[in-house]
């Protein structure tokens, strides 16, 4: 299937999901599935750098929060419609990703990972000390009840849900396109043997920077509508550990080598968590995610997608 066809199919699936959701008309459904879609975007974004290039980013929460706080800043300075805020969030986080990458990606991979780990702590310090965006007290973003859209009035949460759905489709199409392009082969060569790739003439630093920027930008875009969704943004919720751990656990559990993995991982883990948050406590829920992450990296290194591929192969030759 070529990219144009795949995009059409993905959009069609998105439209069906949107229609079904509209038809069911339950507000809670929007709230719950918004979070899951947000994780689809985060997991896919993480996988562009982590899965394709093999560079681990522990700072997903930081990039996510950058997008969210860019929205808060703009909302206070000069209110703009959410789609534009998503673009701004993407640009801000993309620039942070580029800067981080430029400073640390020329060294061994572990330095980048450590730097991203520290990035969350520092950005959180900055935000806590920055009174304009609410400081440690947090900031209110009043969400309108409804929005006029081409003459039709729709519920605001449905509008946010639709935007996140579209963003998820764009992220998935981007990931799949990268996978099949020259860029994707370049990424894979870095993941498999960076030294050999460099020797063969692959511009590794440039490719890594492209991956870091793209990945950061998508995380920022996922975060930009978050203040409108939650209504009250605190540093501790924007920099929440669940973003960092989920955006790693989801691709790892789903499978990191193709765009399907993060999608499967995010849908499964995301829905399970939505269910678990209601039925058990959120700490137990995070513990389960952590244990699953450890179990999967040890037992099933290629995730669920890898397991399914393995079974298929063993079916064919009994």
């Amino acid at each position, binding site marked *: 299937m070529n990219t144009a066809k795949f995009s059409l199919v993905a959009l069609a699936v998105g439209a069906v999901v949107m229609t079904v959701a509209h038809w069911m008309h339950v507000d809670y459904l929007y709230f719950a599935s918004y979070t899951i879609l947000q994780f689809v975007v985060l997991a896919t974004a993480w996988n562009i750098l982590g899965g394709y290039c093999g560079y*681990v980013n522990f700072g997903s929460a930081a990039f996510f929060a950058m997008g969210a706080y860019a929205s808060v800043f703009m909302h206070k300075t000069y209110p703009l419609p959410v789609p534009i805020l998503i673009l701004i969030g993407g640009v801000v986080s993309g620039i942070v990703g580029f800067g981080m990458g430029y400073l640390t990606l020329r060294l061994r991979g572990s330095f980048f990972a*450590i*730097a991203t780990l*520290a990035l969350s702590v520092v950005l959180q310090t900055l935000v806590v*000390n920055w009174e304009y965006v609410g400081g440690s007290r947090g900031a209110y973003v009043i969400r309108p009840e409804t929005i006029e859209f081409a003459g039709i009035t729709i519920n605001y949460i449905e509008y946010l849900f639709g935007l996140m759905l579209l963003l998820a489709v764009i992220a998935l199409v981007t990931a799949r396109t990268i996978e099949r392009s020259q860029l994707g082969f370049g990424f894979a060569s870095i993941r498999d043997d960076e030294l050999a790739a460099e020797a063969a003439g692959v511009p590794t630093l440039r490719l890594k920077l492209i991956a870091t920027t793209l990945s950061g930008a998508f995380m920022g875009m996922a975060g930009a509508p978050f203040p409108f969704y939650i209504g009250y943004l605190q540093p501790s919720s924007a920099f929440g550990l669940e973003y960092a*751990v989920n955006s790693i656990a989801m691709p790892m559990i789903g499978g990191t080598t193709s765009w399907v993995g993060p999608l499967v991982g995010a849908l499964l883990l995301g829905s399970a968590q939505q269910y678990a948050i209601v039925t058990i406590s959120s700490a137990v829920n995070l513990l389960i995610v952590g244990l699953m992450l*450890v179990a999967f990296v040890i037992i099933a290194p290629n995730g669920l997608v890898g397991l399914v591929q393995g079974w298929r192969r063993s079916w064919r030759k009994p």
Partner: protein
Amino acid sequence: MDISWDLLLNAIAAGLLLGGFYAAVTAGVSISFGMLDIVNIAHPAFIILGSYIAYYFNIKYGVDPIVVSIIALPFFYALGAGVYQVYYLSFEKRGQESLRGLAFFFGLLFVTEVSLILVFGVDYRYVEAAYIGPSIHIGIVDLPLRMLVPFVVSLVLFGAIQLFVTKTFIGRAIMAVSQDQTALQLMGVDPIKIKRIAFGISIATASVAGALLIIIQPVEPSVGREYIGRVFAICVFGGLGSMPGTLIAAMLLGVVESLTATFYGPSWAPAVAFGLLLLTLAFRPAGLLGR
């Protein structure tokens, strides 16, 4: 400029004491990351585990936290050796340490933190000991015993490790494995066994560091995250695998953080380590005393 000398001297003294404590916190990572090239980002979580063990026995039986941590050393050593065995079999042997190995340690960090939250809750916990409270005055400088005792213990710990790696056979083998694993194998030593011992020692230091941490400040499960940046900043700034470098870097970071906290406010202190880390990576990735 009108700087009060009182304040400045006290800030520097406090910084040096803090730096000594940071050295104990970093010692383990200096072994695992610096010498064995194992990016154990879960190390701060083990330190917090050490804090909670010290807390539990201190509150329940009134044992001194440092004594508890020394009794707990063998258990932490065993834990470390066990973790290394899993890490080796699942990742190092298959050549997958860069991506999945990191994710494994991240998962460990996370599981430890959340388990501690589930058992002890998110309240700040602290220990009781005779030296928490009083302080020594030398001229205008105040030296609280709460900081001085950890400083001394951590220097002793650091000295012991330095002696161990330079003077004993196993210590030298650890240095050798960090330089050339194949050569060590040719000399008839099993590098995996040496690495297991070294990793066990690295986790064992977390027991002592944890007890020191809870003497210095009240602890809650997520405090460890603040130390990830610090620990790796010190380790990289000092030069990977160099114990003296680590000590100097820890002292420097302690002083700079203390000065920042005194003159700009304590909420800015966590940013110092990260700035230091980025500057080191950008300008001198080999660190102060790195090869």
